[in-house]
């Protein structure tokens, strides 16, 4: 039995004013060092699930269920304690790369700020560490350090965001559609950066995406989400070849259009539709 890091149990969320149900009975687990994909179309509630863990829900939502992080219920621990876990225990990278850093403050300054919020080291050491992080992900460290976020490309910003998130040594990294706003090539470099650091630090990743190919290629387990519910769960191969839910079938059948894949399996998947 693997050790569970994050365990979401019977999580439901609905709006307080019109009782619209946003999430219904979500059960999801991420084990230590595991890379788990949460896949589904936009509006299916993937990001909302992540935001529950990140403590970023709006105040007009009613939340029931349990979200355990290392046996502490995030939902009942109070805002302040929850906030303290962010960054140092739970790292996050978001979809909109322009929103990853505050636009008017130089990247380096923001890195130093984040590092010093979690480690008691002086400015100079934090600066060294930041530069080191940037080098680790193969960026021109000095130049990036002294740039404003808008002077960098989307791929660069996302890599810096990942580098910084991992420099804080979290046990769990939440990646919310981090490659969606990027072109394919920069997306791949960003994912490679995650892979590389993950191997070194052994941190778990909750990888939210709508791209089945990415999930299939890069993750250990996949959850499929539709309309606020988790409809299927399994290893990438299971999801690809032995899926049961119609929505998953539809997702997999879309892969047909991708050349250079294993045709036999795809045809097998498509036939069962």
């Amino acid at each position, binding site marked *: 039995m693997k050790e569970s890091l994050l365990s979401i149990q019977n999580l439901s969320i609905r709006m307080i004013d019109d009782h619209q149900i946003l999430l219904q009975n979500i059960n999801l687990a991420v084990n230590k060092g595991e890379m788990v994909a949460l896949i589904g179309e936009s509006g299916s509630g993937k990001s909302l699930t992540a935001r529950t863990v990140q403590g970023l829900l709006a105040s007009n939502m009613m939340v029931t269920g349990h979200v355990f992080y290392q046996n502490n219920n995030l939902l009942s621990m109070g805002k302040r304690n929850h*906030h303290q876990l962010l960054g*140092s225990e739970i790292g*996050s990278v*978001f979809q*909109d790369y322009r929103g990853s850093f*505050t*636009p*008017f403050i130089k990247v380096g300054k923001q890195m130093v700020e984040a590092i010093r919020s979690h480690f008691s080291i002086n400015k100079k050491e934090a600066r060294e560490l930041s530069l080191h992080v940037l080098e680790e992900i193969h960026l021109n460290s000095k130049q990036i350090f002294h740039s404003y976020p808008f*002077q960098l490309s989307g791929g660069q910003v996302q890599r810096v965001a990942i580098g910084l998130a991992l420099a804080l040594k979290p046990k769990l990294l939440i990646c919310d559609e981090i490659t969606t706003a990027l072109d394919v090539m920069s997306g791949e470099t960003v994912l490679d950066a995650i892979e590389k650091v993950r191997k070194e630090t052994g941190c778990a990743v909750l990888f939210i995406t709508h791209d089945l190919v990415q999930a299939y290629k890069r993750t250990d387990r996949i959850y499929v989400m539709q309309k606020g519910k988790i409809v299927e769960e399994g290893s990438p191969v299971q999801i690809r070849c032995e899926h049961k839910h119609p929505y998953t079938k539809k997702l997999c059948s879309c892969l047909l259009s991708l050349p250079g894949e294993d045709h036999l399996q795809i045809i097998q998947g498509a036939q069962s539709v």
Partner: protein
Amino acid sequence: MKTVGKMIGSRLSQLFIMIFVLSFFTFLLMKITPGDPIRSILKVDDVSVTTKKEEQLKKEYGFDEPILKQYGDWIINVAQFDLGESLISKKPVSELILERLPATLALAIGGLTVLFLISIPLGVISSLYENRWPDYISRWIALVGASIPSFWLGLLLMYFFSLKLQWLPMMGRGTFAHFILPSFTLGMAMAPMYISLLRERLITILQSPYIEAAKARGISKRRIVFFHALRGSLIPLVTMFGLSLGSLLGGLSVIEILFSWPGMGELIVQAVTQRDYPLIQGFIIVIGFLIVLTNLLVDLLYMVINPQIQQGKEARV
């Protein structure tokens, strides 16, 4: 830098248009107004009015020339930094205005300091407690503050702090204590607009993705508000400052009279009651110049706060 040159150029052209339009307009108005400045000069000189004397003075001041010629002469003089001399005190206008300038600037700086001391905390509190009681209180302060006449506010402050409590001198200029009440009146009169604007901006910014990213990075709430969010909301605030500079100067003149503060506002009101035309005209030029100059400074400040402008990119926030 190219953009800086461009900026100065556009501000300068604004200066010329403004001064040209306003001075011509007021000049024209002077000429078509029935009242006669010569008579007011004679009244001040306390000489019995004779037609001969009147004619003589008219000639002396060039008032018998055609309007366009008079305006042309005046503009040429202005271009040589000669604003003419006061009809009443016979001193050069530029001298009269310049000796009042320090007092006005001092009061403006005092007022701005108070303005920031009031509007930043209230704006921040309002946005942090959106639609809860601290927010309602600060919004009511802003609403009532926008409805209160500044001179009455000044009178009330004067009444309580000078007459009742006797903490501060009532009027005049001299010590730092003299400086406090006028500065507070000015700052409090201007604050409401800034409180509302800051509140609105902060509420928008606190919901923006980069604030969430900072939160998710575990940065403390205090740092998020004061380091990340406030900085973004300073941009519209600085723009607002450039735009409201005029009302600052306008508000100043009322407050100067209220507190007998010997600044430019007091001078202009004197000039108005005595119909001292050259002084009024000169005043318009100087104010126009001050406004364009400050707007230029605001532009430069804007570049410092929002580095995106330097890059020739549009601000995204």
